[in-house]
């Protein structure tokens, strides 16, 4: 054909020999359901809604996660408790659309929404992959054990007035500032 042909034939034999040698090499495949490889702690899998250390829902239904989600798969409806705490009335994630990018976790100001290292969530139909709030809400704090949004934020709720939060100073009485 041309002057490269002899070199090509040698390389051809080389590649044949290489694959043949690999017949005795160690297998790379991991037999998955029997052998489970440890997942890194920051693996982005199934999403949960966590609670604060007092056992209350962390989510304050600010819609930030829903807004940031690139595939628009979070749907929620905000409402308010009598003590002034906001919470989501419904919270729905369509895992058949979620791409597990973790943006929702990054956007959340209350550390409520978190991704967990669990990916084994196959279902027979798309509908079963739409998780409602009952399926999302867990008992526990997830990756951030001590954080409690309402204790730190300067928002008044029943039992905590403005200025009573952790590290807060009471608000200045503006009358005393007058000349």
């Amino acid at each position, binding site marked *: 054909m041309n002057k490269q042909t002899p070199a090509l034939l040698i390389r*051809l034999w080389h590649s044949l020999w290489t694959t043949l040698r690999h*017949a005795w090499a*160690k297998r790379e495949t991991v037999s998955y359901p029997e052998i489970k490889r440890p997942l890194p702690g920051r693996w982005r899998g199934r999403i949960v809604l966590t609670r604060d250390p007092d056992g209350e829902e962390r989510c304050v239904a600010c819609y930030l996660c829903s807004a940031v989600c690139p595939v628009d798969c979070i749907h929620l409806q905000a409402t308010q408790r009598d003590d002034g705490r906001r919470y989501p009335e419904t919270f729905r994630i369509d895992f058949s659309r979620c791409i597990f990018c973790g943006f929702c976790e990054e956007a959340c100001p209350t550390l409520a929404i978190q991704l967990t290292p669990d990916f084994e969530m196959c279902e027979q139909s798309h509908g079963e992959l739409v998780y409602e709030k009952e399926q999302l809400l867990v008992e526990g704090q997830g990756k951030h054990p001590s954080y409690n949004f309402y204790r730190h934020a300067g928002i008044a709720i029943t039992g905590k007035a403005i200025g009573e939060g952790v590290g807060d100073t009471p608000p200045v009485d503006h009358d005393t500032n007058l000349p």
Partner: protein
Amino acid sequence: MSFTLWLLTFASMVLVLLGLLLIGAILSYGERRILALLQDRLGPNRAGPFGLLQPVADILKLISKEDFIPPFADRIVYTVAPIIVPMTVLISFAVVPVSEDEWLADLNIALLYVLALSSLRVYGVMLGGWASNSKYSLLGGLRSAAQMISYELPMGLALVGVVMLSGSFSLREIVAAQELPFIVLQPLGFIIFLVCGIAETNRLPFDLPEAENELAAGYNTEYGGIRFAFFYLGEYLGVLLIAALVTVLFLGGWHGPWLPGVVWFALKTLTLILLFFWLRTSLPRLRYDQLMDLGWKLMLPAALLNLLVTAVLGLFWMRG
């Protein structure tokens, strides 16, 4: 012909057909296991012991899939094309002599018959690509046609040497003439036929009509379900056919010491099939121009040379 003879013929036909389909299914499993073996993987090992039931699972899956014809496709041709491919291969097997006294038909033009059918096979691929009416399929089909033209020629020429040596077109008589396998007398012809055979079956490194990386799935991009299965059956049976033909034409068919003829035939064919699988794991796909170069600038002159040398030597041998 008496009625019983008809019945017997029919029964043996059905038996051979089922046997071939079974072999095709086993090859599809065997290929994946062997590819995996050479690529540090495990391959299909879940369905049944050692994954042996994988072909059954595959067939069930393919059959139960939706029978979808793209709205832009040419319905009739689209439906017919996948049937052509396994059909031509299956009827080629009629003339392959498995052992000294076991064969289906002993045509005196068997070699021409096989070559003709293997040329017909490309129509399945080409029409499938054409009828799908999508750019990938069309390109795959075109490539397949060009590839076939470039490789039929040297293939046929390489076989003329065999015909000269044995003095017959009948595959049975060709094998009978091979006390000394023709690979010894026709080493060049053997290599040319083997390479062209691989090109004929569209296997790597000549799988340009399919070329997953560049053409989605080439000619069968738009195919799914049972039609796709037909194409695949055709491909695996094609591998079997080419291996059987190389065995018959160059490796002495059923000839061999101690073991019965069928066993020798099976062993030789199996070795060649393993070689096909091995080539598939090891070699990258040729570029289109390299394919053409190889076909026209190397294979064709080499085949002509082989023909010339065989003819001249044969002439002197016959004189002397």
